[in-house]
């Protein structure tokens, strides 16, 4: 009985994950596919061959997307660890204000804040640059990464660090051997969120990048708008691959024993 349930669940999950891909694959290999038909009328590898050509800009956009997402992820996590720690562990003057500040970007539409900073970016020559794009991506990534680490540290017993110290660990080794392993699952989740938020970001990149910064998301949007569905389908698949890899690699930290929130919970 248990087995049947497990197989059923697995099947459902596979359908859930794979099904949306089927039309994309079909589109990517079609030359003509009109409405009532269940399958493309004319098959062709045209879209794929086109995208693999250097002139398509796919490689450059992938590199740009990766560079931006990786930098955003590293910076977000580096900020989220001390920020989450302060919010989760300590009481201090102005904490409520800090909490509000951290949460604000989840309520205020990204668009609104971007219009706010656009002028500033123009003045400091950050608009239309990679750095500018990274900075706007950070607004939401830092927020979500901090929220994750905040949760981790709310459930964290800092006495473990005191124990490490008295046993002879200096602050650096103490972080390396005591704190890091305890918060690592949380860091993976925070990094995953940061990466995906940046990877799938379109609108903010368009406004601040001013078309000069071409990420995969921008490229995809252009093709989708131009009506070339086969190319858009193929590009969608390419677009999702890195995200799927990241998700797959990190999935064991999202559930079960290794779940991010387990931390050093309570100590007992």
């Amino acid at each position, binding site marked *: 009985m248990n087995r049947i349930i497990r197989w059923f669940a697995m099947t459902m999950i596979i359908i859930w994950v794979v099904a949306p891909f089927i039309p994309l694959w079909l589109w990517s290999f079609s030359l003509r596919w009109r409405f009532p038909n269940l399958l493309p009328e004319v098959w062709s590898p045209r879209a794929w061959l086109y995208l693999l050509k250097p002139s398509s800009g796919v490689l450059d956009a992938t590199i740009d997307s990766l560079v931006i997402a990786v930098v955003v992820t590293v910076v977000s996590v580096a900020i989220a660890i001390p920020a989450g720690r302060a919010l989760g562990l300590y009481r201090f003057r102005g904490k409520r204000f800090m909490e509000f500040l951290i949460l604000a970007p989840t309520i205020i539409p990204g668009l609104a804040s971007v219009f706010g900073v656009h002028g500033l970016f123009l003045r400091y020559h950050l608009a239309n640059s990679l750095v500018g794009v990274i900075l706007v991506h950070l607004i939401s990534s830092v927020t979500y990464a901090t929220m994750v680490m905040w949760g981790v540290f709310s459930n964290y017993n800092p006495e*473990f660090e005191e124990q490490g*110290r*008295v*046993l*002879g*660990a200096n602050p650096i080794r103490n972080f390396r*051997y005591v704190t890091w392993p305890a918060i690592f699952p949380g860091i993976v989740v925070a990094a995953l969120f940061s990466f995906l938020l940046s990877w799938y970001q379109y609108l903010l990149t368009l406004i601040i990048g001013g078309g000069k910064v071409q990420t995969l998301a921008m490229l995809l949007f252009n093709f989708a708008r131009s009506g070339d569905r086969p190319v858009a389908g193929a590009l969608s698949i390419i677009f999702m691959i890195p995200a799927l890899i990241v998700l797959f690699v990190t999935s064991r930290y999202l559930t079960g024993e290794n779940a991010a929130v387990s931390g050093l919970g309570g*100590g007992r």
Partner: protein
Amino acid sequence: MTHLVLNELSQTYSNTDKPALDRLNLDIKSGMLNALLGPSGCGKTTAMKMIAGILTPTSGDILFDGKSVLAIPAERRGAVMVFQNYLLFPYMSVGENVGFGLKMARMNKATIEKKVLEMLELVQLPGVQNRKPSQLSGGQQQRIALARALIVEPKVLLLDEPLSNLDAHLRDEMRELIRDIQRKMGITTVFVTHDQEEAVMLADKIALIFEGVLQQYDEPDVFYNQPGSLRAAKFFGGVNFLDGEYAANQMTTELGTFSAPRSSLDTGPGVLSIRPEDIEFGTTNDGDNTISARVNSHVYVGTYTKYKIDVNDFRFEVIAEANTKESFPDGSNVTIRFPADKIWILPKG
């Protein structure tokens, strides 16, 4: 072997004005085990954390062998604290936990492994090195925490309520283990507890602390025979107290005048105290320090009988050994005697 001295050690936490620990003075001779005893919240853990170096004193000094250690950070101070809730690192094996301190000291792997096995032997848990801490019982975790501290051969060992999370029979075992190892290794040890019996059984000297203030620092028997205050006497199980005026070795009370050569004060208002097992029963009303009384009730507790005795509006507890004393039915008239050499006069209040 380290001679540990605390000199006016104080801690006032930043969000409070009343000190959690107020000018604590202790002098723990090399290789001795002293207990910090007091009710929950009196500042025991605070004192330990300052000795360990993970909490900076507000004022005062800590000396190891005559030298201040305040400038030495926790990781190099050599005072290892075993926390009340063990704090075994959950993502490490038991062996890795025990070897942690040596790894931090950059000792080589083979030596660490060898020493870990020795330590597990010492705490009587051989063969558990590959388990996870969560697979051990509370008592076993406590031993591992002790092994993890001992392996670095600390100058000072700080044990924060090591027995309070264990059930009764484990507690006896663990207490003996601690005492044996501490004697064998000769480590200067501070032992925290809120249980006076535990302190008495383990410690060479006891520091009794109430609300951050040291009340009395003495050998265990002194707390029974010559407590320094009414509160100290009550904390150590004292129940019989009688107010009066003390002068010239005489205590004058509502129940008469008692001769009482042993006193913590010269003269003035005081409190007569006597332990339940020191009060003598009788039926004849002659002799000094003897008063008429009436048995209110009694309970038989196997090796002794515990009586509640009324004298006017006062009630005393008397413990009579079962085999030596005849029994006195409830309501019967008796006399009780306070032997002069058993009375101890306390300062009032």
